[in-house]
């Protein structure tokens, strides 16, 4: 029963987090306090279900909207700007990494193909050299045997 209640609280908080546009220190404190308030309600009302939570506290999206209306505009504005800046930086870094590895992979594929061709040509040369040596060796053996004779 307790697990089911804590699951309801967790699900509510998860949904609330989804509707909050930023997750800064203030929103973190808000979410923590909301978790506590929900926990208090659940503890005081034994048979409380998800509908009771919504009736008492409002839907998670309304809860997030309430926070946005009441929260300090300056703090929230800074957090939103910081979040946007971070997203841009992360996007640029991710793109740079992708481009870098893309180039790396392309170069690696090109050099692999070159190496593949080089290996084959060397193999051919080695076979030829072996044949020549064999011929030379055979010639030498024949010459030596003629000298001996």
């Amino acid at each position: 029963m307790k697990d089911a209640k804590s699951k309801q609280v967790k699900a509510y908080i998860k949904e609330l987090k989804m509707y909050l546009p930023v997750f800064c220190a203030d929103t973190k404190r808000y979410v923590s306090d909301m978790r506590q308030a929900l926990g208090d309600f659940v503890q005081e009302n034994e048979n409380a279900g998800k509908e009771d939570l919504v009736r008492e506290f409002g839907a998670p999206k309304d809860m997030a909207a309430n926070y946005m209306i009441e929260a300090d505009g300056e703090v929230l504005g800074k957090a939103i700007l910081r979040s946007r800046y971070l997203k841009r930086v992360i996007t640029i870094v991710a793109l740079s990494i992708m481009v870098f590895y893309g180039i790396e992979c392309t170069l690696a594929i090109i050099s692999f193909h070159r190496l593949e061709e080089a290996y084959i040509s060397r193999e051919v040369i080695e076979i030829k050299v072996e044949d020549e040596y064999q011929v030379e060796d055979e010639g030498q053996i024949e010459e030596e045997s003629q000298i001996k004779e």
Partner: protein
Amino acid sequence: MNEKSNFRRGSVELLILYLLSQKDYYGYELSVVIREKSNGVLDIPVGSLYPALYKLIDLGYITDYKKQIGKRLTRVYYHMEQEGFKRLDILLKDYTLTTEAIQNVLKYQITGEEGK
């Protein structure tokens, strides 16, 4: 407080400070007490109450502390500070003046001569 404070926001601040001048409360308890004592007329959602509490903390009117309840539960209680009492005095005077002024305006009725 915020420059954009409106009547409801002002009331929330007054109600919180008044209740905390009586004793320390935790967030959800404050919301429940306001609703019960106003016979359900003032239903301030907890979602709105917490940002108001944070502002009061930032302004130094109240402080918060954690209290262990039972083995696993920890609650954040809010406590009124000296600056909070001063602020409450100002808000109460302002509230009394404003409600009196509003009542006076609402009592006013245009007499026959003034209507012309």
